[in-house]
């Protein structure tokens, strides 16, 4: 199982499409930096295919005024949770 990191908003970049195509059935996706804009509706719909495996970084949401506004399907993690996700995954692939 791989962890993918995405730091681009799906509103301005199409890289999330390549990310989703490269993801295996167990793989997880963590939205960081500008990627966290994808954790809110309606953009969060772009990640429908990985329901339950989508995460977003709390401090990047908070600094952008978005904490508490995430779609219910997104799991919000703190920095320690980010580290835990990398522990649990064999490898991490970054998309930018």
């Amino acid at each position: 199982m791989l962890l993918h990191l995405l730091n681009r908003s799906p509103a301005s970049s199409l890289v999330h499409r390549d990310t989703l195509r490269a993801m295996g059935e167990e793989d997880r996706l963590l939205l960081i930096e500008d990627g966290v804009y994808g954790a809110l509706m309606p953009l969060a719909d772009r990640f429908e295919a990985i329901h339950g495996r989508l995460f977003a970084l709390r401090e990047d949401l908070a600094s952008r005024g978005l904490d508490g506004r995430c779609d219910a399907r997104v799991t919000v993690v703190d920095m320690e949770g980010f580290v835990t996700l990398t522990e649990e995954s064999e490898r991490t692939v970054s998309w930018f």
Partner: protein
Amino acid sequence: MLVVLRHAPHGSSWLREGLDVALVGAAFGQAVTLLFLGDGVEALVRNQQAGALGQKGTHPTLDMLAMYDIEKLLVDSESLAERGLTLEDLQLPVAPIAAQALPALFAEHAAVFNF
């Protein structure tokens, strides 16, 4: 190791710097697979030239890959189709890979460098 090239030539140094990682890996004796994905497929288009001010292109480096024994070259079919390209438009013989095969490709390599 897998090196993924997702950026077009000339607009940024990502393609050149990604290729450098592949070359160094090969010079160190690693088995290198190259995947051209997204805008990275533009790197393969024929008839490229040097840029303004004599900035080197990446097309001679692609010709050089065989000298570094980098022979596993894959191109994402969907990325080609989206850009109106076919294998005949490309300067090198590369193997097309279908979208369904991408996850396994990412999973099977011990190291993945995504540029």
